């Protein structure tokens, strides 16, 4: 199916564990983004990528790592999860000119 998919939809992990959230898009959009959404903060940009092998930090990158070896995939890794990283994570993609399309989100709980 065409679109942007995130996995898993829900994840519970323990403090200190490494967690990877997956994002896959089928449009070959050049731009991909990771946002986190928390009450009172709206959506905040974690990392973005303008093309394969090109990534850059957003507003809140600490504690996160991304990679983009293929245009269609943009995984987000929490190297050592902390409770403050409990959030809903949204991946999005966009062509060079145009609007974002968001994935359905991953609700991550760190206990």
């Amino acid at each position, binding site marked *: 199916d065409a679109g942007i998919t995130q996995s898993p939809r829900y994840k519970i992990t323990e403090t200190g564990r490494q967690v990877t959230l997956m994002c896959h898009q089928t449009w070959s959009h050049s731009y991909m983004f990771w946002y986190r959404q928390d009450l009172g903060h709206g*959506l905040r*940009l974690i990392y973005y990528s303008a093309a394969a092998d090109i990534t850059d930090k957003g507003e809140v990158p600490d504690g996160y790592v991304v990679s983009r070896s293929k245009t269609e995939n943009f995984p987000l890794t929490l190297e050592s999860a902390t409770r403050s990283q409990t959030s809903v994570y949204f991946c999005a993609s966009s062509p060079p000119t145009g609007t*974002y399309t968001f994935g359905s*989100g991953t609700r991550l709980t760190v206990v």
Partner: protein
Amino acid sequence: EDKVVQSPLSLVVHEGDTVTLNCSYEVTNFRSLLWYKQEKKAPTFLFMLTSSGIEKKSGRLSSILDKKELFSILNITATQTGDSAVYLCAVELIQGAQKLVFGQGTRLTINP
């Protein structure tokens, strides 16, 4: 620091009412302003505004941008319970990477 502020943060009205949601911004290198509707899942696109004074309409929803005063409004007329959602305003920056800066959102509740 680039900033987008939405008001009100929360709004409860009765079905059939008209509502106006506000979005003001202070950013460098403005490219466009976007409105999204978020129900239980991902935000879905409503409007993109790039020019002042040109109203965009989609059914009962409309939006306009004022680049001089740095704000936008989203109007919803004859509201329905299905309009209940969080409405997000975002500003796209000209930085070569299409980054969006989001406001906190307005939670709109329509009571029957």
